[in-house]
Every structure is written in C-alpha cells, then in structure tokens.
C-alpha cells in the first residue's frame, strides 16, 4: 500500500502557499503604499469568495434571487471585478477620509478593524453561517504513486473508481535517465541565472528576477526531460521507497492562476506608469507628490488591486477547500500577515515568497507533527512570524 508522504504535503503546501501569497501581495501593497496595516484584508478575501458564490450558486444564499447561476469560472471573474469596485469603495468611503485627517498608524489599525467587523458580519448577515460550496464540476483526484526500486523510478497513475483503485497509466525511468535529466535541468537553471544576472547593475530593473527565472527554467527542463525519457514500466512490487501524491486538476488550475496573477502584478508594478507611481509613493509619499504623482489616484489603484488580489485568493481558497464560511478570510489573516512580515512589508515580491514559505511550512508542518496537532496549522504560521520578528524586526528580506 502506498502512503502519501512529504512530497504530497509539499504539493498541498504549494497550493496553500500560493493562495496566501495572493493575499499577502495585496496586503503588502496596502501596507507599504497606503500605510494601513489592514486587518480587514482577510474579510476582503471572504467577500470575494462569497461574491463568486452569489453568481455561481445563488441558491446557497437566502437573500439573493435564485435567477442566474453562472459557470464557476465566469462567476469567479465576475466576482473579482465586483470586488475591485468594492476596493475602490473602501478607499473612497473610509481610508481616503482618514488619510486626509493624517490618521496615525494605530488609528488606521482600529479603522481597519472596524471595517473587518463590518465586512465579516455583512457576509454572515446575508449568507448565514452555514458551510456552503461552489457549484463546480467535480472530478476525482488522481494519485501519482512514485516507487524507487533497484532498477529505476516507477510511476503509476491511479484513480479511485467506486471502491477500487483503477490504474490509469504506468511508466518508469532508469536511474541513469533520472540523474541525467536532473543534471541537465540544474545546468540549464544555472546557465539562465548567469546569463540574466550578467548585466545586473544598480539601475537595471529585471522584469523577472534572474533567480525566479532560473528556478522556472530548471522545473521546465526537468518536466520536459521527464516526458522525453519516459520508459517502460518498472517492477514496483518491492520498492525501497514509495510515496503517493494526490493530484487534482484543481491544484494545477490554482497554481496556474496564481502564476498568471503574479506575472500580471509584476507587469503592472514594473512596466506601467501607474506601477512606477506606486513604487515612488511607497518609497516616499511627499517626494512622489512633489514630483507630480497623483497620490489619490495611486491610492485608489492600490485598494482596487488589493481587493482584486484578495478576491482571487478568496475564490481559490473556497474552491480549494470546497467550503466557504464567513470566517474563512479572517482565519487566514494571521498567515497572510505572517507572509507579509516575513517577506518585508515594503516588498511585494518578498510578500509573495513569504506566502509560499508560510503555506509550505503549514502543510509540511502538519504532516510532520502528530495527527492531533492538525488544528494548529495556523499556529505554525504564527511561530514563523514570531521567530522572524525576533531575529530581524524588519522582516527577512527587509527593503530588498
């Protein structure tokens, strides 16, 4: 019998991590540019998730007319757009007013707490406290079973069909092929890193940082190599090591959406005029104003983007967990804050990376700890947060 193991936990952690990363990215924008430690950010996730529910599965919500039920993907996009409008409302109705009054950081913390109470209970008021789900096409997870044996690496795809496990596919690699593919992949990654970082100077802004590009190259080459060198089945009866990785097209979709989101945000921040204005505002608001940056517009964009990112994270969270409830976002607030603080509040990239790190730690941590500690998943994020703050009060990546 094949058991799920560390690699499965890592895969889960990547999915959790990318959801946290999307939340953290939005929170860090608001944190660094609007200078609001936004305690309502978790509830902005919840609002996004429920907006998608209202479009996709309105019968779950008592106060919404049961007229249109859009396919999940369409509903998700619609929810994200509406959430963006909400983001503009938060800015105009609440935060712009307090900014005009030069509210200090503590006041902003408590204002955002007020908004958090409002949003969370607005959802509770409209949708009730029951656990609900999106109406999506359900597909059964595929298990990827990996066996390490004397003759090579065996892979089996299995799927639960009724009470039985059906084997969908099976293939293997000789050890030589495994080593060769890994070596080529690492070499390609190193080469790309050298190539891209050769012209690094103080002035140069990379669209994608060389490190990220190198890791992406390594993964792509490894995947390509694995497809090319695929061989016949390997006897898997008595493996030295075996592990099961639960895979779903859902996970792939979540990772793909997150990746696309990150690239879009990267484009906005680095290649657009607004993005440059945002970064200038984050560095020094008064200087940016002197240079002719329209601060109010930048702030509006920031809140809209933050709400959009929060909605994306919220929808994916609800989909991933197959469960929505009014506390879902607030419960994720701690990991999201942890990610932002770990990554350094002024660095959106640090925040995204921090999100991945926190998500991985949570799922791997739960896997490594005894079963009765599963309720302390959030606590793991918190332990990371405190550990990082104790060592470097400014966050791991600081202002990098």
């Amino acid at each position, binding site marked *: 019998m094949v058991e799920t193991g560390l690699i499965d936990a890592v895969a889960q952690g990547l999915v959790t991590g990318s959801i946290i990363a999307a939340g953290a990215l939005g929170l860090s924008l608001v944190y660094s540019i609007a200078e609001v430690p936004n305690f309502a950010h978790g509830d902005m996730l919840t609002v996004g998730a429920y907006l998608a529910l209202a479009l996709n599965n309105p019968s779950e919500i008592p106060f919404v007319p049961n007229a249109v039920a859009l396919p999940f993907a369409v509903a998700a996009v619609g929810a994200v757009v509406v959430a963006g409008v909400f983001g503009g409302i938060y800015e105009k109705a609440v935060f712009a007013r307090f900014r005009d009054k030069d509210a200090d950081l503590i006041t902003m913390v408590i204002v955002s707490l*007020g908004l958090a109470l409002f949003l969370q209970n607005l959802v509770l008021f409209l949708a009730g406290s029951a656990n609900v789900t999106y109406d999506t096409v359900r597909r059964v997870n595929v298990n990827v079973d990996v066996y390490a044996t004397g003759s090579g690496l065996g892979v089996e795809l299995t799927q639960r069909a009724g009470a039985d496990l059906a084997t969908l596919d099976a293939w293997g690699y000789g050890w030589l092929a495994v080593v060769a593919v890994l070596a080529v992949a690492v070499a390609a990654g190193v080469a790309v890193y050298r190539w891209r970082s050769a012209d690094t100077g103080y002035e140069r802004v990379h669209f994608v940082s060389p490190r990220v590009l190198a890791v992406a190259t390594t993964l792509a080459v490894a995947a390509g190599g694995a497809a090319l060198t695929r061989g016949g089945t390997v006897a898997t009866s008595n493996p030295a090591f075996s592990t099961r990785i639960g895979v779903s097209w859902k996970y792939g979709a979540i990772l793909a959406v997150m990746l696309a989101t990150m690239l879009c945000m990267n484009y906005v921040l680095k290649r657009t005029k607004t993005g440059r204005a945002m970064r200038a505002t984050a560095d020094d608001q008064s200087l940016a104003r002197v240079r002719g940056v329209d601060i109010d517009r930048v702030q509006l964009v920031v809140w809209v983007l933050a709400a959009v990112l929060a909605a994306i994270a919220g929808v994916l969270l609800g989909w991933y967990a197959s469960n929505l409830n009014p506390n879902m976002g607030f419960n994720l607030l701690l990991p999201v804050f942890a990610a932002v603080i770990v990554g350094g509040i002024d660095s959106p990239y640090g925040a995204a990376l921090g999100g991945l790190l926190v998500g991985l730690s949570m799922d791997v941590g739960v896997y490594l700890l005894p079963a009765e500690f599963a309720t302390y998943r959030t606590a793991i994020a918190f332990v990371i947060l*405190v550990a990082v703050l104790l060592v470097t009060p400014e966050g791991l990546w600081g202002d990098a």
Partner: protein
Amino acid sequence: MALADFLVSLLTVVSVYTLFGLGLNIKYGFTGLVDFGHVLYFMTGAYVTVVVTLPVAATSYEGIGGFALPQLLSGVPLGGLLAWFVAIFVAMVVAALLSLLVGVPTLRLREDYLAITALGIATILHTVVNDERWLFNGPFGVRDVHQPLAEAFPVSLGSFLVNLAVFGLVSVLVLAYIGYRVGDYVYGVDLRAAAMAAAAAVLVVAGLGAAALGGALVLGGVLVAVAGVVVLARGIGRADGFGRPLALFTALVFVAWHFGTPFFTAGPSGVLASAVWLFDPTAGADGGFTYGRFVLLVAVSFVAVAYWWCERTVNSPYGRVLRSIREDEDVPEALGKRTFRYKVQSMMFGSALAAAAGGLWATHIAFIDPTQFIADITFFAFTAVIIGGAANNRGVVVGTAVFWTLHTGTRFLNDYFPTEYATQLAALRVMLIGVLLMVILYYRSEGLLGEQTYDTGVAAEEGGRSE
C-alpha cells in the same frame, strides 16, 4: 424575567466589562499598546478562578485541577469567600505573568506588529483551550463554578414587609443618589436644549412603545423614534455642549423604560417592583436579596477599587511616563526612562485587571466555555473605550455602559423576528458596531468625554500638596 432582574444582569455585565476595559485603557489609552489579544487575560482569569476553586474530580470535567480551595479553607470563617478572593488574586498573578511572557518578545516590536502578534497569540491559546480537553475540559467548558456565599442567598430579614422596607429603601436611595448626580450635572443646561431633549425623549419612547405593539405600528413607531433622534440632535446643536442634553435625554428614556414599561405590563405593582429593584419578591418565601444582586454589588465594588487604582496610577509621574510613551516613545527613552520596562508593567497591570474581570464573569455566568472568550470581546472593549474616550477612566465606564446597553438592548428585537433570523440579527449588531467604530474615530476620535486631565497630587501653581 422581571425588568429589575434584567437591569441587575445588565449592570453586572457592564461592571465586568468596565473592569476589563479599565485594563485595556491602561494598555491602549495611556500607554498606546494595541493589545488585540486582551481577551486572553480575561479567559485566563475566568479559567484560573474557576479551576482553583473547583472541587477535586468534578463530574464531567477532565481537565487539570480542581484544586478545591473552598474545601481547603472550609474551616476558616467565610472560607468560601476567602477562597474566592484568593482565586481571583491567583488569576490576576497568573495573567500578569502570562502577559509578561507575551510582552517580553512582542513589546519591542512596532505597534502594528504588536497588534497582529498579540491577536495571534490570543487566537492560538484560545484554540489550545478549545481543543485540549486535558487542559480545561476543551469545548465542554466548566460547570460547578464556585459561587461564594451562594448558599446564604436569597437573604431574607424575616418577613416580606421588612424585606421590602429595607431592601426597597436601599434601592430607592441608590436611584435617588444617581438621580441627584445626574440632576446636578444637567442643572444649568440651556433651557431650549432641555426642552428639545425632553421632547426627543417623549418621541423616542412613544415611537418605540408603538413599535413594540407590532403590526402596522412598527414602521410608524420607528419613524417617530427616528424623528425624536433628529430633534435630540438639533437640541444638542443649540446647547454649548452635548453632554447635558444627552444626559437629560438618557435619564428620561431610562425613567420611561424603567417605570413606564412595567406600568403598562403589570400596572402599579410593576412600577413598585421597578422602584425597589434590589428586592426580589419572588425569591424564597418572603422575597429577598438575591445572589445575582450580591454579585452585582461585588462587581461594582471591584470596579470602584479598580477605578481608584487606575486613577492613582495615571495621576502620577509614573502615568506621565506611560503617556509620554504613547505620544512618542523616543522622547522618554532619550530622557533616560527605561520605556521597555514601563510597557511590560503596563501590560501586566492591564492584564491583571482583565483577569479579575474574567473571574467575576465566571462567577456571574456560572458556566464557562471557550465560546465566551472569542476575539470579538477584545474588539468590543476597544469600541467601548473609544466611545467613552481613550485615556479617560471615566470614559471607560460611560463607553462600556453605552456599548453594552445598546448591544444588549437591541436583543429585544429578536422577539419580533422568527428565531431563524437570530444569526442575522447578531450579525447586524456587530456590523453596526464596526460602523460605529469607524464613525466615532472619524467624527469624534476623542470619544464622548475626551482625554481626562491629570493631577499628580501636587498642585502645579503653588507646588503645594493638594491631596
């Protein structure tokens, strides 16, 4: 439940949360520490008090303890009460030590990091208490809460008439004293503002009264009540301050509610029952002074002592250093004050007060479980403190009274809606609290009373002693 019982229960809750808020005010109002985990010490206080006084091997309790302190002290006169005080003291010490553990790493952080780490620690310890049955019985909570002297209640002085006379007299005296203080404060109010406040009170009472009859009157009644609020606002606009007209309005509405409602439901005897609210005619054979009223008395005494204690703390050079930390920590530090030590002490003192409130809460409610200690309790206390005016101890009393009266008072709305909407109504209430928090911070960030003035016990001008 009779009106008087409801009033007693509400006042007890207000007292408990006032004590809790006084602790928060030391941290947040005077020192500027945004402790979003304040409820942690309330929970600690409640559990420690209960477990220390819990009998050994209490039924359906699988946590640590009980330590059976009342049984240990049973030989001492008033041993049960003494055990309870010892338990409260232990709870305060435990909470102070816990906040020391929490504070040493977190109080070096920026204020926003402190807020999130404090919230995190409180959330996680709440999860621990909820999930670990070996600790304090997990989600099943603790019954068998030790209620000191409960066996002596209801106190009866022999006959119904004597009870009515004595306790009734005390009740009336209390009401008269409060009425005197309010009147003394309101006296001198602008006459037109007073007239408008009175008219507003009439409109609000009539409107709400009509709405309570139900049917088609609901909408009209609510409209009349809203009109009353508008009149009140205009009346306040005419006066030179909002305090006096508002106090007058509040007093009139209270009188109408306290004496008017029972008149319509129970007739003159209802009015009498409201007047002698500290006397419960249904308790025991001859009526008497109930345990709930005793707990209220204890809670009010705790608040009085804590209020005095907080005032003494902040009206001193020590309090001056605390406030300078709130304003700008670099200044006292540059002047040679060890600000970190002050922040830790402020945290410990505030947490100890929260623990005392927790102990009182447990005694009042007689059953505790983790659902009573959610993060919202902290946020409510922040709202109450901000309503009254942060860094104002009297403001905490006023703010907590306003907050919990509105919070509890709006529960009567539940009666007019089908029970399946209870969640909705509760959510609506908290939504409005969130809005209230933002509105107050925007329009009147200093709260109803503003920041208090300070006196270190030395008259400033002459440099002479004034205490």
